């Protein structure tokens, strides 16, 4: 009966309650949204690379190296000579090495030149190796293996032919039209940037750039080459490489050795450490966003509190009637708290649905633009804690009007 009374009382004040409910829903949308995206971004980034001991690139900032080599965000400052890669990879401390060559694209998706070791050793999430949904790894010069998202979005299947573009712009006019690639494999979804990547051999990358210089085809270059057997397709340089070491204990020694390499300026980073640096840099932004969303929520709470306080003034006769029929003052206190609880509850439901709807709508955009796989299900341990805090905060915010109602009931009709 008390729940019914609270709900009907709220329905009786539809317009003011609706405004408070909308404010509460928007604030919960912002609060949960910031927390969810923050949490998912971290999880996404942390899951992207696993089991890699060192990432090596041309000397730059460690975060920059991590971003372009693993997350395909930004661009390298320089390349590494192939000889350097071979020298490091052949070290007896190194178990495996994966070369990475970036610079081309296909309809906005990055192309990664690498070796077949990529499919053998590269792992994501909790040391999970890449798996093929269809087909196999590249073998021939113009074979390409597609990430799950690329195949799905561009509707490619095994045997399809595609043309790579020079550079990473979404729309490119410098196409390698004369050397199309055949789709030979499609990877299973990983929830990482691998899904938005096309994988080709380093030799394939070299082959399509034979008569190219500085990003443009050399005019009047030789006739199209049909047979590459006699051509040396060993790359001259690569963008970066990943290392797996035989002994983890040797990581810092190998890192120091690479960083002090005399042949060319190199930087070796530990992915976990670079990620921590990235989180540190993002920390201020994260905290600012959380603070802003908390303030938005606080404003909504105060709005509900003010609405309830005003309603108590209007409901003086109702309070009197309830007292006359035997309602104790504490009942009036909890009635107002119950009303605040319902506004918060419906605010949480509405805000959550709004957030899930927005994530559903913007999911593809977030993947395409930022490579972020944001889960639509927002109910994690973190968000449930936050929702509980929201209820606690609304209880506290409603305490003032509830107490005023209690006092009025207690004072009688004076």
């Amino acid at each position, binding site marked *: *009966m008390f729940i019914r*009374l609270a709900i*009907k009382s709220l329905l009786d004040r539809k317009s003011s309650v609706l405004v408070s409910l909308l404010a509460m829903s928007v604030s919960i949308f912002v609060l949960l949204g910031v927390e969810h995206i923050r949490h998912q971004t971290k999880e996404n980034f942390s899951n992207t690379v696993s089991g890699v001991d060192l990432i090596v690139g041309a000397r730059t900032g460690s975060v920059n190296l991590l971003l372009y080599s693993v997350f395909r965000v930004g661009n390298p400052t320089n390349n590494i000579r192939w000889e350097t890669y071979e020298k490091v990879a052949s070290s007896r401390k190194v178990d495996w090495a994966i070369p990475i060559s970036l610079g081309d694209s296909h309809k906005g998706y990055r192309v990664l030149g690498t070796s077949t070791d990529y499919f053998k050793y590269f792992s994501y999430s909790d040391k999970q190796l890449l798996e093929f949904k269809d087909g196999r790894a590249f073998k021939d010069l113009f074979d390409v293996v597609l990430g799950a998202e690329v195949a799905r979005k561009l509707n490619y299947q095994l045997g399809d032919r595609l043309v790579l573009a020079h550079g990473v712009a979404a729309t490119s006019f410098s196409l390698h039209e004369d050397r199309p690639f055949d789709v030979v494999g499609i990877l299973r979804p990983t929830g990482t940037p691998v899904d938005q990547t096309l994988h080709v051999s380093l030799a394939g990358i070299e082959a399509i750039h034979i008569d190219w210089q500085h990003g443009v085809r050399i005019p009047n270059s030789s006739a199209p080459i049909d047979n590459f057997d006699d051509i040396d397709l060993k790359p001259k340089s690569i963008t970066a490489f990943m290392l797996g070491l035989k002994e983890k204990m040797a990581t810092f020694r190998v890192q120091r050795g690479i960083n002090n390499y005399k042949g060319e300026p190199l930087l070796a980073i530990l992915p976990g450490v670079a990620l921590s640096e990235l989180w540190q840099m993002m920390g201020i932004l994260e905290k600012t966003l959380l603070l802003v969303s908390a303030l938005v929520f606080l404003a909504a709470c105060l709005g509900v509190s003010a609405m309830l306080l005003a309603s108590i003034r209007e409901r003086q006769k109702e309070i009197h*009637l*309830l007292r006359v*029929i*035997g309602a104790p003052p504490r009942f009036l206190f909890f009635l107002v708290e119950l009303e605040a609880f319902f506004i918060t509850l419906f605010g949480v439901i509405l805000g959550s649905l709004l957030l899930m709807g927005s994530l559903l709508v913007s999911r593809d955009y977030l993947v395409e633009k930022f490579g972020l796989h944001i889960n639509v299900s927002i109910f994690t341990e973190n968000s449930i804690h936050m929702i509980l805090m929201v209820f606690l905060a609304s209880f506290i915010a409603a305490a003032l009007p509830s107490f005023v109602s209690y006092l009025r009931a207690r004072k009688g009709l*004076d």
Partner: protein
Amino acid sequence: MTITIKDAQYCYPSQPRKMVLNISSWSVAEGEKTFLHGPSGGGKSTLLNVLSGLIQTTGSVSVFGQSLNEMSVRHRDKFRAENIGFVFQQFNLISYLDAIDNIKLASAFGSSQGGETLEREIKSLLADLNISVDEWSEPARNLSIGQQQRIAIARALINKPQLLIADEPTSSLDQVNRDIFMSLLMSIVKEHKITLLLVSHDMSLSTHFNSVVSLNEINLVGKQS
């Protein structure tokens, strides 16, 4: 005795020097139908609030032999819900609740059983008071004052009180509805053997009562002025 008052004095906390009620001795016998009249601002509503335990006076106020001043707030609220029914001039009902919910709410504070028994009891009461079935589920604000008054009687009776207090219950009614209301009220009081205390300035109602009391006679504040 249903009501016994001795040396009761009351001033509003906001005006501590201005006494509104000063009763040296007054009582209402069990089963009595008392008509209390007096001028506006004479302290009638204050007296009713004292009897319901909503405000406290000095001296002693007992209802059914139990001293209200010695009860805790919680005990007084429970005592009021279980033993005293109220009917007012207006604002008798929660405007956004229907008749059934208004009555259920009152029973929730008393000791009535809930569930189907309560629902049956409420419907039987409403039917006895000539409230048509269509009006049971209408929000109170959509009903006429007369209908609201009858629902208020049903609400007041749901916890089977031994004392019914009516504060100017007919003031908002026309003469026809006033007569219907009074005869209904009297028949219910008789049937349920309830002590009735009705406050009004309409002296024509006094014919229904076996005791007529002027507040000026019992309230020394009135006598002094």
